[in-house]
Structure formats: structure tokens, C-alpha cells
């Protein structure tokens, strides 16, 4: 390839004059590519925005089935991996190739960790039938929240969240990891206190919530939910353990809106496409790792690691948007 000019280092393309020119071109190309990636996701984000504005109640209702803890852990994992990636880029510029290998390996491990956690989440959704379109068949027929749920429905939810005490109904409801868990709320309250008060409470709390859901503003729903810890019907239903319990039970007493599957459709599309990008990023990291081990890089030339780093940061960044948009809806 590099036929002429003895001053041309091996890694410099024949059509470039200087190493800087090649580096600039590579970096600029990568930024443009990242722009296309952002636009690819932008289509889905646009779909998200449109459906959320058309059906706010669907998003408010359905998001509670996502596991916030898992999402938060994954966020931390990815942010940490971005940190190690950035360190790897720096180490490569300084020519510390052994450090580069170690840091890239950690980044790669984080990628696997992310995918593992995502797999656990997907599996739970799959088991509960919380899927897209026609595949949406929640295992515990959630069309009537007031309807007492079958107690054994609690089991998979507990197993999935890994709560040590299956008997602790409050934990199950609080985790909100499946409709079974949510519907447990009513019987749970019955376990805790006076059935008569609970019946009344459920009816009372369902009414304002239902009204609120008719309103376009998603905030209205929450104005009907007392803050955690305030003694009220809702907190009585599910003792607050982690902060989110009040919300779950508040919604649990409302009717399931129509077309909840739309949320899961968007959830799976967004997280699925992101997951594919994580895999692509991990492949790129592996490639950079192999090349580092092969000794391709020197302080004068480590552009591929820079570029892989940029890509990996984008993959992280997309997740930083996905997490609040999907898991932390208010």
C-alpha cells in the first residue's frame, strides 16, 4: 500500500501526508459515524416521545414493571466502563500497553456484566408475558387491578428480584417487577390490616387515580399519591421499604390502560437496539485488545483505541438517556 516515500511509517496510509492528517481524518470520520448512530436512535426516541404524549397513562402504568435497581446497577456498570475506557485511551497515548490491555479487559468485563443483567431483566419480562404487540400477555391477567391476585404469583417475582424472604409481601410489591407483584398489593394490605378499611381504601384510591389518568398530564397521577411514609391508605397497602413502594401500590389500584404493550414494544426496541450496540462496542474493544497484544500501537499511533473509545462512550451515553426515559418515569 505505501509504496513511495521512505519517510512514510507503515501505519500511515499512502494517501495521507502526515500522521496528524490521518488521525484528524479518522477522528472526524468517527464523529460523523456517531452522528449517524445518534440519528438512528433519534428515530426511536421520536417514536417514544410521540407515544408517550399520546398515551401518557400507558407509560406511567407500564414503567413500574421495569426493575429500577437493575437499571441503576447497569447504569453504574456502564459509567464505570466508560471511565476505564477513557483510562485505556490515556494509557495508550502514553505507550503503557500493559495498562491498556488490563483496562480494556475491565471495560469488556463491564460489557459482559451489563449484558448479563439485561438478560436477567429480559428473562423476567419474558416469563411474565410483558412483551410487545400481540405477544403482550401478562401472566396474571392484570386487566382488573382490584381483583385479588393468586398468591403464588409472588414466587417468580421474588425469585427474579432475589429478595431473600419470599414471605415478605411488601418487598414483592415494592420491587414492582411483574404484574403479579403489583396485584399482590391488595391482598398484601389485607394481610397487614383490617380488610374492611382496605376495601374501602382501594375503592377510594382507585377513583381519583382513574380520574387523573384521564388527564393528559402525567404529573396529575402522582399528585394523588401520598409521599412515602405518610400514613395513608396507599402506604398501608404496601409498607414502604425502598422509596418506590408508594408509587407501585398507587398505580396498582388503577385500571390497566389500553395498549400497555406499546410501552414494552418501545422498551424492547430501544434496549434491544442498544444491546446490539453494546455487542458491537464489545467486538470493537476485543479487536483493539488483540491489536494491543500484538503490539500494533505506540505513543505515535494509537488512533484505533481512540476511536473505539469514542464509540464506547456513545453506547454508554445512549443508555444514560434510556435509563431515565424508561425506568424513571414520573
Amino acid at each position, binding site marked *: 500500500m505505501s509504496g513511495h516515500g521512505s519517510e512514510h511509517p507503515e501505519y500511515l496510509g499512502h*494517501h495521507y501526508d502526515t500522521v496528524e492528517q490521518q488521525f484528524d481524518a479518522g477522528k472526524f470520520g468517527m464523529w*460523523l*459515524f456517531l452522528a449517524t448512530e445518534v440519528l438512528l436512535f433519534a428515530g426511536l426516541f421520536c*417514536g417514544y416521545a410521540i407515544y408517550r404524549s399520546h398515551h401518557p397513562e400507558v407509560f406511567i402504568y407500564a414503567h413500574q414493571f421495569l426493575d429500577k435497581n437493575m437499571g441503576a446497577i447497569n447504569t453504574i456498570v456502564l459509567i464505570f466502563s466508560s471511565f476505564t475506557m477513557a483510562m485505556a485511551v490515556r494509557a495508550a497515548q502514553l505507550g503503557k500497553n500493559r495498562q491498556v490491555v488490563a483496562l480494556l479487559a475491565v471495560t469488556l468485563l463491564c460489557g459482559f456484566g451489563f449484558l448479563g443483567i439485561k438478560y436477567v431483566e429480559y428473562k423476567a419480562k419474558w416469563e411474565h408475558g410483558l412483551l*410487545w404487540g400481540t405477544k403482550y400477555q401478562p401472566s396474571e391477567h392484570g386487566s382488573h387491578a382490584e381483583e385479588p391476585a393468586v398468591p403464588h404469583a409472588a414466587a417468580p417475582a421474588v425469585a427474579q428480584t432475589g429478595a431473600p424472604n419470599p414471605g415478605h409481601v411488601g418487598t414483592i410489591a415494592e420491587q414492582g417487577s411483574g404484574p403479579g407483584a403489583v396485584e399482590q398489593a391488595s391482598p398484601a394490605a389485607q394481610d397487614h390490616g383490617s380488610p374492611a378499611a382496605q376495601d374501602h381504601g382501594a375503592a377510594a384510591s382507585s377513583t381519583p387515580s382513574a380520574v387523573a389518568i384521564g388527564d393528559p398530564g402525567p404529573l396529575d397521577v402522582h399528585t394523588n399519591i401520598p409521599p412515602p411514609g405518610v400514613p395513608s391508605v396507599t402506604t398501608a397497602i404496601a409498607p414502604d421499604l425502598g422509596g418506590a413502594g408508594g408509587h407501585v401500590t398507587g398505580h396498582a389500584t388503577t385500571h390497566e390502560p389500553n395498549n400497555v404493550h*406499546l410501552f414494552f414494544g418501545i422498551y424492547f426496541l430501544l434496549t434491544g437496539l442498544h444491546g446490539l450496540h453494546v455487542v458491537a462496542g464489545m467486538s470493537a474493544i476485543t479487536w483493539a485488545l488483540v491489536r494491543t497484544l500484538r503490539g500494533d500501537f505506540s505513543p505515535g499511533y494509537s488512533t484505533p483505541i481512540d476511536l473505539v473509545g469514542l464509540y464506547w462512550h456513545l453506547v454508554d451515553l445512549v443508555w444514560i438517556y434510556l435509563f431515565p426515559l424508561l425506568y424513571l418515569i414520573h
Partner: protein
Amino acid sequence: MTTIDATHPGATRGGAGVEENYLTHGKGLLSWLTTLDHKRIGVMYLICLLSSFLLGGVFALLVRTEHLTAGQTIMDAETYNRYFTLHGAIMVFLFIIPGIPAALGNFVLPLMLGAKDVAFPRLNLMSWYLWMTGAMFLLASVLTGGVDTGWTFYTPYSTTTATHVIPVTIGVFILGFSSIFTGLNFTVTIHKLRPPGMTWFKMPLFLWAIYATALIQVLATPVLGITLLLLIAERAMGIGIFDPGLGGDPVLYQHFFWFYSHPAVYIMILPAMGVISEIIAPFSRKAIFGYRFIAYSSIAIAAFGFLVWGHHMFTSGQSGLINMVFSALTFSVSIPSAIKVFNWLATMYKGSIVLKAPMLYAFSFIFLFGIGGLTGLFLGALSVDVHLHDTYFVVSHFHYVMFGGTVIAFLAGLHYWWPKMFGKMYSERWAAVACALIFVGFNVTFFTQYVLGSQGMPRRYFNYPEQFAIYHQISTYGSYVMGLGFVITAIYLVQSLVAGRRAGANPWGSTTLEWRTPRIPPWFNFENPPPVGDPYDYSQVRYDPALDDYVWVDQERHEKKAI
């Protein structure tokens, strides 16, 4: 041979009689399939694109033949639906969108810029392989029965039809990536590989046009990608986003689709305008008029192009306000387009016009694009569009722009750069005959369709009432004339490769940098960065009757000094 090459210092390198060029650099099919040379990749694109153009053209002629009589002529209604879909999909995705940038642009861009190659040669080759993969998917669909949705794949029909929507969609998705990578490559090349002296405003206008196109390719195509993924998800998994039965919105598909596909119209037409700018000046022997305005108008068209997609949905139930906004924005696109046309006309004014094949096509372009552009205003006007929407008027409008514009400019560029690509001249006389046949045939085919459309003939209909018969017949006969024109073109171009007159290094007397290379450029383009001058200053070259070629005055002077 050596005497001619001696006037070009770059060419003498090969030694006596042996002319080292990109065509002879490496032999055998494999050396082509693994090449990283932008010129070879351009030629490979050219071959593939022309093959798909042939395939799409055959489908077009079949569709037109079907319309010779009302009801069934040569195929049933189902087949008809598939054929017009395949015609559209092949022409749009396989030919017109990659068309000028991938084939002509790949060949010419680094040469014009004075660079040795595009920024990412391997990515460039990968784009070609992606194109091939996408084409295979489309071809597989053709062989297994095709699709009948129309090239736009509108939901909900595309999610319910029994034909093979998914392979075609995957194919188009892959083609999209090919397009993105080409655009990315060109953008970076223009930004980072300009040699010393090649400032932005010394760049030939074709490069401005390709640059504007590349920006659209990079920024719009990903949205098509996600749209098609959603369509696949909808069809394969029943995700419900476009299905009203599941709370989805089929019009959202149209928004997504046109958010890409309207800018894509400018992916098709902008490089065509660039080609025309490149031809009008040398064939008028006069500097281009309003260089900066033409350059800026390319960027303006690219920018406006992103803001008008809603005009495809005037009758899809958008709000009146949205319709008005989109209508106004649509009209605004005509301003930069008209700027270009006026500048071309002003360039020709008082020029010494040379009527050679590229210029004949450039004339055709201005005329046909003018009609196509002006009828676009009819469709952009809300009240008129309600009547004309989805009629043959629309069909005719976009054929005037896409065929009368892009395909004609593609032919213009092909004839213009043919001597540089292959070092051979084609028969000027036959080229003029073919150009005339295509021009006349095209107008007979499609002007008739304006009349049909304004009388209410809907597009994509298999049957028609008797009163439309005469128009359909005229239109079909016109298409045969056009077809004949293309057959002649194919014959004399192939003939020129075999037995064509040897072309000089600069047969048209152009002053952009690709004409500084020897008659067939060497593999490395330029040994040293070429001297960058005004791209449209024709005092830089002089016609040498002894060589029957134009020579560069500065090179001549340099050689005299050496002697």
C-alpha cells in the same frame, strides 16, 4: 503514444511506450474485487449501477406495455403491482440514490480535489460490498415473486401483504449503510484531504454538490434505517407501532419514511446539479457565473430538504397549520434551485457554446428539470395537491425530476468523464442521436402523464376508463423510443471501449484538476499535489491542433524551460 504523454510530466513515469494506469495496475478479477483504489471502485459501481438501471428499465417497459390497453394486456393485476414496485425500488434504491456519488463521484472526487484517494479506502470498498449485499437481497426478492407495496412500503399494507416485504426491507436497510459510508467518506475527504491551495472556494462545484449530498446521506439515512427496522419488527414480531389495531399510528410510518426519503430526493438531484455545473462552463468556454451562489445554494437545498417531508402527507390528515407550514417551506426550496438554473443560463450567455454530447445532455437537463421543478410547485400548493395527489401528475413530476434531472445528468457526466475513465472517445454522432431519442421519448412518455394526472388518472392503478386509453398508448410508445435511445447508448459506449478513438488527456479543455492527470489516471492519481488554480479559468489551457487535445499552459511553459 509517447509524444502525447510527454506533454504531461506525470505520465512519463511509466517509461517508453508502457503506460502505467489504474486499469493496468494489477490484473485479474481478484485485483478488482480487493482493490482499494477509488477509481476502480467507481468503475465497479458504474457497472453494477448500470446493470440495475437495465433491470429497473425492463420492469418500466413491462409496466408501460401493460398499459397499452385497459385491463389485462400482458400481465394480471397482481403481477402489475409487483412490477411497478420492483421498478420503483430498484431504480430508487439501487440506481438513483447511489448513482452519481458512488459511480461518478468515487471516480472523480479525489482527482478533482487533487488527493490520492478518499479518506477511508477500505470503508469505500466495504460500501461497494454492502451495495452488492443489498442488491442480492432485492434480487432474491425479485426471483421469489417480488413485493407489491410500492417502493414506499406504506403501512398497514406492507405489514399485511403476503409478498416478501422483509427481504426487500433488509436489502434497503443494507443499501442505506452503503450510502451512509460513502457520504461519510466523502465528507471527511473533502474536509481533510484537500491539498495545499485547495481552499473551499477553489473547489469545483461538483465537489460542493457532492459535499452537500454527503451531509444528507449521513444525516438522513439513519432515520430510514430505523424506520425499516421498525417495519421489520412490525411485520416479524407484531410490535404494533404502526398498527392502528394495537394503538399504533400508520401515519407515523409515513412521517418516518419521508423524513428520510424527501431529503433523499436531494441526494438524487444535488449531485446531478453538480455535474451540470461542471459541464456548462467548459462547454461555454466561459467561467461559471455566480460560483458562490451555486455553491451556497447546494448547501441551502440540503438544509431546506430536511424541512419539507410533510408535503407528502397533505392528504393524510395532518393539521391545517402543519400543512401550511410544509407548503411554505416546500416553495422555499425552489429559490436555491432557481438560483442554480439562472446561473447556468447566465454562464451560457455570450459564451462560445460547444455542442458535444455532455452539453446536449446538460441542455436536456435544464429543460426537463425546469418542467419538473415548476410542476413541483403545483403539488406544493395545498388546494391543487388535493386534486393531484396520487395521480399520474405526481408520477410525471418525479420522473421529470428524477429521470429528466438525475438520469440525464448521470448520462451527461458519464459522457463527460468517459474519456478520463477509459481513455477512449465514443461516437459523437451516435451520442447526439441517442440523446435526441431519449429527450423526445421522455417527453412523449411523461408529458402525456401530466395530462392524464390532471384529468384524474390515479397512479398505481391496473385498469383505466376508455377515455384515458389514447394517453396511455402515447405514453407507452414514448417509452419505447426512450428505450431505443438507451440501447443505442449502450452499443456505442461499449463499442468505444473496443474500437474507440484514443482520447487525449483533456479533450474538453476543462480546467478542473482531474484533467491534469494523463489520459487514463495512474493508480496514485498525482505524484505531487497538483497546482491549484481557478477551476473555471479557461485561459489555463490551450487547444493544440497537432495533438487534437488541450494542453495546460503552465506545463507547456515548464517543459520549454526544461528544454
